[in-house]
């Protein structure tokens, strides 16, 4: 491999990038924008669920139950229903997300020990909030009732014989930024593949300049390596941006060894950029390359690799297939390195898989690029 030819390819690519400052700006700014959006705007916690209330009893007990629900901040009474039948319309109009319908003789039934029933209604159209709203309502009602009973029991008699002590590791405040920002690193690097390297070869094919490359002494290996170098630099800039901003703005820690982090990030970088490169080699038009890159790299990374949705909830078959995707492994690695302080002894299987995939993708691009017309 000739260093001179490699550098010539890289220099040409750098010239191309610099002549299009807007693309460079997007590659560097978009990660920041996403970081700020995910860091400040997105909130996974479900709070202040809008509740419609029907309370025909209006006694101390019914008011106490409602107060218990709203005091925690999880629910907020936004609508008082005049009739239980109104609840459905209110939910359809989305004025409220859930409804609580209390029975007429709530307090007297409770006091007399007669069975009583409440009805909770949830808007299933938003299944994220719905399942949480349901379980909160259920848990809080049972909890309220248990505490009322506790007050009537003789002293010293524990109502619950088992007391669980819960400890939370690695992310004690359950902060969503600690969870999301390492994942964002994985997503953004893959995004660069989808946007940048997926275009680099196919663009030359569309413009006709690929013929010039083919007849030159440049080998396929030199071409791929030369093309990759500028994007590796851009990708590293993004890594620095995200981890730096993550640390400064959101206090996301890096508890593992920095050297391990840098090394594995580099391997993943090659995998992500290599994936884009491979797509670029096998497609004929930039539009198709873009579409395929979106579908094959970015979308799976955001949805299937454990970024937001847990892997274990997916069908078994898919869980196995997604192990072929480099982002799956790096997602685990980066979270373990940043939050758990995990070391090589724990991470080596994943690191090995990632390296293999990385080599396959870059090697595949080189192999597939046939120096023919």
């Amino acid at each position, binding site marked *: 491999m000739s260093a001179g030819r490699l550098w010539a390819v890289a220099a040409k690519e750098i010239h191309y990038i610099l002549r299009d400052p807007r693309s460079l700006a997007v590659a560097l700014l978009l990660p920041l924008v996403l970081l700020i959006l995910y860091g*400040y705007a997105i909130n996974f916690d479900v709070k202040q669920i809008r509740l419609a209330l029907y309370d025909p009893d209006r006694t101390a007990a019914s008011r106490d139950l409602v107060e218990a629900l709203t005091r925690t901040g999880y629910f907020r009474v936004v609508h008082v229903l005049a009739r239980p039948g109104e609840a459905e319309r209110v939910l359809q109009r989305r004025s409220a997300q859930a409804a609580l319908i209390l029975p007429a003789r709530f307090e007297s039934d409770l006091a007399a020990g007669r069975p009583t029933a409440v009805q909770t209604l949830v808007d299933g159209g938003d299944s994220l909030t719905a399942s949480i709203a349901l379980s909160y309502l259920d848990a809080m009602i049972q909890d309220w009732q248990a505490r009322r009973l506790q007050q009537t029991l003789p002293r010293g008699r524990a*109502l619950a014989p088992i007391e669980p002590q819960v400890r939370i590791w690695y992310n*004690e405040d359950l902060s969503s930024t600690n969870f999301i920002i390492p994942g964002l690193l994985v997503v953004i690097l893959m995004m660069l593949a989808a946007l940048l390297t997926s275009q680099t070869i196919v663009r030359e094919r569309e413009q006709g300049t690929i013929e010039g490359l083919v007849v030159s002494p440049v080998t396929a290996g030199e071409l791929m390596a030369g093309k990759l170098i500028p994007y590796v630099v851009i990708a590293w800039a993004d890594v620095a941006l995200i981890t730096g901003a993550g640390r400064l703005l959101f206090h996301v820690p890096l508890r593992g060894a920095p050297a391990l982090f840098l090394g594995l990030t580099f391997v993943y970088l090659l995998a992500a950029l290599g994936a884009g490169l491979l797509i670029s080699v096998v497609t004929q038009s930039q*539009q198709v390359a873009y579409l395929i890159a979106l579908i094959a790299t970015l979308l799976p990374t955001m949805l299937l690799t454990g970024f937001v949705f847990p892997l274990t909830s997916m069908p078994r078959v898919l869980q196995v297939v997604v192990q072929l995707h480099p982002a799956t492994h790096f997602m685990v690695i980066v979270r373990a390195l940043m939050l758990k302080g995990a070391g090589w002894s724990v991470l080596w299987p994943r690191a090995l898989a990632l390296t293999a995939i990385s080599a396959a993708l870059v090697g595949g691009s080189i192999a597939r690029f046939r120096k023919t017309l």
Partner: protein
Amino acid sequence: MSPRLGHLIRKELLQLRRDRRMLFALIFAPIFQLFIFGYAVTLDIKHIRMVVCDLARTADSRELVNSFARSGYFDLAAWVDSPSQMGRPIESGRALIGLYVPHDFSKRLARDETAQIQVILDGTDMNSAGVAGGYTAALIAQYSGRRQSASPTGGGPAAAGMGMPVLQGIENRPRILYNPELRSVNYMVPGVICMILGTVMTAMTAMAIVREREAGTLEQLIVTPIRPWELMLGKTLPFAAIGLLDVVVIIIVARAWFQVPMAGSGPLLLVLAIAFLLTTLGLGLFISTVSRTQQQAMLTAFFVLMPSVILSGFMFPIENMPRAVQWITYAIPLRYFVEIVRGIFLRGAGISVLWPQAAALVGLGGTIFALSALRFQKRLG
């Protein structure tokens, strides 16, 4: 319709037919997304891997641990012999939650004392951690309740005879409207429609127009008698048609394969989709006027669309966002279309409920398209 516009549309369709892969990708992409959302993406958290350290090893402790396994929420992934060994599976990610039962568990229960157990949660994924914590609390409460009613000093009919209060429960009857089994696919499929129309169409339109500018054929078109408005329509109408075709395909696949019910009116959805297409195609048009190369067009489109997808309320509820951000989302057309599609699919909402969103779409769409058209004409003429 002017004959020139007709010719232009024919040319576009011919070009599309030649590029089989593009056509395939444009029709296949939404179906692929649908399958991903339908099978892979789920908001239910199950099969949470658990590591157990049971030092008591009595019938009681085994019953407790088994109740976790039986619930279907937890998978017992590892058993260890000492609490210090629990750390490793959690650190490596083999387990999300650890359960430690101390050796005096049964003895304390027998003496009617509170038995303490320890639960360790991997807080990295705070969603799963929160849900796992909730399930754990519920299972422990149920276990306690079973012991309570079984024991002679607990609540229940025997207790009533002894003058103790009866643990008569409040029965909670939950009802879920509109998506009774809380199937994620029902919730996500409308989202796929929005994604395809909102993102792919914009980028493809912008790239298609810029492609002609790059190739130099746009200049050739300008020197023909074609008027700017005909050129604009000729470029955007084919994509509008493909977009609507995509919507129909998605609806068919969603209903036939995934059994996603559609409570509302299909024709209303198509009509409002056209309104939404005004905004996306208008945006594509605008991006094409500010881009010189296809790569620029694609990157600019991505830069504009990715934040709007995140803020549209498709995956993250808008109400959880800070006030300032919520104000910004009023300017994002995708936000209204997500509400429309979800309303029609899941709640059977009609125009009487959705007219504010429809009006917003028409208003925004008209403005964006008009401004883009003006800019397009100026650059051509």
